């Protein structure tokens, strides 16, 4: 983390970190445009851009029609033409109409023009469950996009990472899908360095060192994995917890180094198990470090149903919990 101005910090939550970072980006570069539904006077549904329109004007804070394909598509055109748009999809669940613009267009602009055109675009969207959001306000979308070379995917969990990685995404010359877990928005607080800094996209963070087991996670579940690891520490079992932070590019070296040390790997994510990020990580570890393993790789993920339900028991059944994670960790340590 390169802090350029001052080492002082401010305590804020994740949503405040998003807001502060966007505000700085708008202040610093008038090529930056925010485009999305309700981002104007309302300041988006989470009030992230509240008051931006008064300060930066309607031409830089664009309230769009309800038309996700063109929110992203118009932002792609702006990016190709030299602006630095930050497009917002109100909830990740509504990103599907924009799938073609993200996968078919943004991710391929540099490639298909052999570098003649580029697409420096950030697409921000709140995702994830545990907020009684029912079927259509709870989804995890990362696995639908991580298959796509040319696109970067970032999913930070801590306020300091939100700021450093969002700054990096805004600076990035390629399209970045920036996923914000909505349950962490107000729940997770932390110290955030003042001043401008970036955290490189593609670097995982070893949150806690340990010897008996490696747990790889991202998003809300990183916080629960830390809680679970604390429970195991109380039982004398030391767990290494890695926060991926970037889903693509993914930090292979950090994962492999950890697995080679602990010899056991548990991947924990909120998204469905089948074809999820965990499948790719476990395939990579099986290819690269099979003989370092003392146990099968395990994935502790959501069941393969279309979505979490609205009723509390349905949501709870879908989501994991620190307790369930702790049990998955114990099982693997004991293997």
């Amino acid at each position, binding site marked *: 983390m390169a802090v350029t101005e001052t080492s002082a910090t401010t305590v804020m939550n994740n949503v405040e970190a998003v807001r502060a970072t966007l505000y700085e980006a708008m202040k610093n570069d008038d090529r930056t*445009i925010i485009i999305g539904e309700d981002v104007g006077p309302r300041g988006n549904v989470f009030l992230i851009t509240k008051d931006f329109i008064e300060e930066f004007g309607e*031409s*830089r804070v664009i309230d*769009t*029609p309800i*038309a996700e*394909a*063109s929110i*992203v*598509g*118009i*932002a*792609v*055109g*702006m*990016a*190709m*033409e*030299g*602006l630095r*748009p930050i497009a917002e999809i109100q909830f990740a669940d509504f990103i599907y*109409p924009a799938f*073609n*613009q993200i996968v*078919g*267009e943004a991710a*391929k*602009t*540099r*490639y*298909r*023009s*052999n*570098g*003649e*055109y*580029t697409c420096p675009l950030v697409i921000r969207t709140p995702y994830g469950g545990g907020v009684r959001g029912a079927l259509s306000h709870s989804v995890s979308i990362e696995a639908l996009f991580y298959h796509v*070379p*040319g696109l*970067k995917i970032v999913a930070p969990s801590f306020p300091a990472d939100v700021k450093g990685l969002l700054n990096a995404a805004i600076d990035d*010359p*390629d399209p970045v899908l920036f996923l914000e877990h909505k349950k962490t928005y107000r729940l997770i607080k932390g110290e955030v360095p003042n001043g401008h800094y970036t955290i490189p996209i*593609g670097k995982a963070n070893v949150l806690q060192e340990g010897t008996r087991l490696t747990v790889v996670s991202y998003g809300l579940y990183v916080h629960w994995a830390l809680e679970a690891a604390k429970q195991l520490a109380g039982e004398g079992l030391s767990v290494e917890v890695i926060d991926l932070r970037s889903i*693509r*590019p*993914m930090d*292979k070296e950090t994962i492999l180094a950890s697995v080679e040390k602990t010899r056991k790997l548990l991947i924990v994510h909120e998204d469905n198990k089948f074809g999820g990020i965990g499948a790719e990580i476990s395939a*990579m570890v099986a290819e690269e470090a099979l003989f370092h393993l003392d146990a099968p790789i395990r994935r502790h993920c959501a069941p393969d149903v279309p979505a979490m339900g609205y009723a509390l028991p349905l949501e709870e059944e879908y989501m994991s919990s620190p307790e369930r994670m702790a049990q998955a960790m114990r099982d693997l340590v004991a293997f």
Partner: protein
Amino acid sequence: MTDVGTRPATLDKRGLSDEQLLAIFRNMLLQRQLDNRGFQLNRQGKVPFALGSEGHEALQAGAAMAFHRGKDILAPYYRDLGLAVGIGLTPFEILLSLFARADDHNGGRQFPNHYSSKAAGLMSFSSILAAHIPHAVGAAYAIKYRGETGRAVLATCGDGTTSEGEWHESMNFAAIHKLPFVMLVENNGWAISTPLSKQMAEPEIWKRAAGYGLPGRRFNGLDPIETYAVVSEAMERARSGAGPSLIEGTCYRFLAHSTDDNDMTYRTREMVEEYRKHDPVPRFEALLIQNGLATKEQVDALRKDVLRETNEATDAAEALPYPVPADLYTNVYEGAWQPWQ
């Protein structure tokens, strides 16, 4: 449609100079020649695929004349050979794309006719229909946002493409923000095998403009002069800050959709022959000769010149190398790319 061949000898040039009229004609001949070349090379097994624009010559040559090089931006589609060469791409560049050579703007990555040229103001686009229309609108937004005057974005597409949601969303946004944007629909009546009647219940696409709060207009796309007049009026309107327009030029598609299509599976030879009676190339030629703008000899010389240029471009492009296998791995992201990332 207006029968340009039977017009009176007092030609309405709509502000075009004699040189511009001849340049339009040369562009039409060049399109015909380059189109032919693509299909020939395909039959010779030298290129796997080609698309033709036969029938669109007048529309594209006229529209290209309304484009201000070095200022305007073009967001075209794959059938826009005449627009591409009309705004400054060379036959050599077209042939590079046909042969998929390394020096092609996109490095041999895309199908032929998917041009890209930052220098010419031609935005890179994919084969995904209508996906480029929001890009054009985004570029128009950038122009307006930066307060640049005297610039506009010209986007084109076929009639079938207007059925896509992204097309509608783009029109709506451009209208709301009064962007310097012109949507030019090249209505040739077909989308591969699907006729207009199965594409839309209202066959006059320009009429949709009213629904967006825009001016809309239809014109005879077989007449390059009328095309020029309508496109330049819309572009001037856009450049001056008065906002976008939706314009629709009618034309025919003489060839199959592409070298991979057999149009006799969905239309008859008689139908195509009927279309051919309206071929804009001989009709414009007759108009120029009738009005003393060119002699038969000059036209023949022009044809020869265009053939020579096409031959030279073919030889030059064919002689160049393909991209090398290592080129597959470049320009995924900025900088180097490791496949497991």
